[in-house]
């Protein structure tokens, strides 16, 4: 099947990333949106690690670590907000939450 070059990994990450974007754009359920964001972050991690591997440096790994840490923080806060939101509005549909508009 030929050696796996960096393009393969990057292509995979692009696909995953844009599936995540689609998820964010298309789905209405806030939780799914959050998970899509997690997926996007993972795709980015993949690119970092792929570049680290093919350039022989380990910086990619460190940055991947930081991204994960951040993702954890973000997920935490997001879920907290979600819970609070649900408690007030009993809905997780993104469409219903248009308080900002008016």
């Amino acid at each position, binding site marked *: 099947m030929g050696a796996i070059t960096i393009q393969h990994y990057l292509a995979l990450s692009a696909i995953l990333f844009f599936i995540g974007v689609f998820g*964010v754009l298309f789905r209405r359920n806030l939780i799914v949106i959050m998970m899509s964001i997690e997926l996007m972050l993972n795709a980015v991690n993949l690119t970092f690690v792929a570049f680290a591997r093919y350039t022989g440096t380990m910086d990619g790994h460190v940055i991947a670590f930081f991204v994960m840490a951040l993702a954890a923080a973000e997920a935490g806060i997001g879920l907290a907000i979600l819970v609070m939101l649900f408690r007030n509005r009993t809905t997780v549909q*993104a469409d219903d939450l248009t*308080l900002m508009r008016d």
Partner: protein
Amino acid sequence: MQAYLWLIPIAPLVGAALNGAIAMAYAKRENGPNERLISLIGCVAPLVSFAIVATLFNEMRALPAESRVFHQVLLPWISAGPVHIDFALMADTLTMVMLLVVTGVGSLIHIYSVGYMHGDRGFARFFAYLNLFMFSMLTLVMAQNLPLLFVGWEGVGLCSYLLIGFWYKDLVNAAAGKKAFIVNRIGDLAFLLGMFIIFVTSHQLGHGTLDVPELRHLVAEHPEAFTAVATLACILLFIGACGKSAQIPLYVWLPDAMAGPTPVSALIHAATMVTAGVYMIARLSFLYELAPTAMAVVAAVGCATAIFAATIGLAQRDIKKVLAYSTVSQLGYMFMAVGVGAYSAGIFHLMTHAFFKACLFLGSGSVIHAMSGEQDMFRMGALRKTMKVTWMTFLISSFAIAGVPPLAGFFSKDEILWLTFNASVGPSWLPGVLWTVGFVAAGMTAFYVFRAVYLTFHGESRVSEEAKHHLHESPTVMTMPLVVLAAGACLAGFLGIPAVLGGGNIFHHWLAPVFGGHGGGTEGHALAAAADTVVRATGENHSLEVLLMLLSVAVGLAGIGTAWFLYNKKPALPAKITAGFGGLYKLVFNKYYIDELYEYTIVRPGYFLSDKLMFRLVDTGIIEGIVNGVGIMARLIGSTVRLAQSGVVRTYAFFFLIGFLYLLYTLLK
């Protein structure tokens, strides 16, 4: 006494301040202030000035001709860069004449108005304004430099506004006051421009000054620099004079000014303020000499005004209006005299006119006072039986103004006519025209004055019933000034008896240092030359002068005769004549519709310009348009952009992605 020069203007100022304070104190109270106290303060102020002026006059007569000048610099007023102006007062022979006239006639009128204004709610206020007017007139006359003169100039303008609109509760008076002020302002503007031009030229010569003696020396040293500018400056100054002295273009305010109390008309609109223009031109005579065209213009305008005002005077029904138009035409004479270079003649006519015109006005005042406010001559008649003194003084003054010898009017008017006849100003035909017009106007003056006399004092009485009961002779406090003025009208003439009639023309010699006597006039200096022409002309053809004199007396008597015939013998005739002339009469009666003309040519377009054009189009349309436009624009753009903010977070992400796609496309292209 020179040290007390400053007291002359300050005395009335103090009087004005006192009376003003009292007036304000009593403004809120029901009963007015004690009239005796007010009249005391009001009359003492001008009398003090008159006393000082008299002593000065004696001192000056003692001095030799050349050094008849008193100077006093009070305190520095403005010093900014090259401009140095200070409160400097000057009194030379010309000023002395003016001072005598102003303080003398002024004091008499103050005394007269004590009686006239008796019982009026604004008694204190009236005297305050009158004193204030005296102060500004005296400053104007005694000012050594033009800005101070201008201060006086504006002061009198202000006081005339205040006094014309004295009974401000009546809208017509207020409007008349306003009209006078605005028209004067137009003239003042021209005066200012003239002053600036003089200053600039003198500045360019290295020594910027508006001081009259200094200017005189500068002009003497650099005549060529000034001639280039003189014409424009002089015309501008003359426009200022027109505004103040009610000449052709700007005379419309004077007839309306009759809305003020009669002593005001007498003081301001006969004796003092209106003559300021003539005085100013006389004062700057050295400048006018350099601009023959300007002098021609002055003369022409003066002559035109004379004839024009005279014709309007013919058809007036209101006694004060008739006198107002006669003042305008007499002023026309003065300007004609000054225009042709006969400054001393002009000033002489100014002095004599002050006497008899003040007397006429005060006479008409006492008539109106008696008739309790009635001013229409056609509702008077046969008042001579009840108002003996007023009638007698009125008659004497009428004879004087008509130019019947030996009264003052004859000498001054005749001298002007004679000098204009020989003048060499402007195109060759001008002196001839001037003389004939002046001659005809003299006749008309005689006619309309005596028309007024016969209508008010002679014939059967047309007085309305209730007015009849109140008919009474004015109190002595009013009749005494009339008598004095009438005496002045008789005797003033003898000051300027021309050489041909054996007189020494004392007046002319008195004013010589100011107008001609400088340095013997031999160095070909323009000023001296003009004076010589005057002297030389009178010397040569005595016979021609006598002939002209006789002619003017004849036309005067003719005028009186026709008036007597029309209004005394056959009172019905004038009505028929006026019906005959119909259109012409209406035209003249309505003052050639000049007011309406101004209304439509200047006032209306002014309104239109300011209201429609400037206000609606420019102001609201453009400026506010722009300002609101910006606001509306912002709202417009805001609303379009607002659509993008749908509040649904996902749409934002969507746009974000589209942006990313475009970015990608551009980068990868």
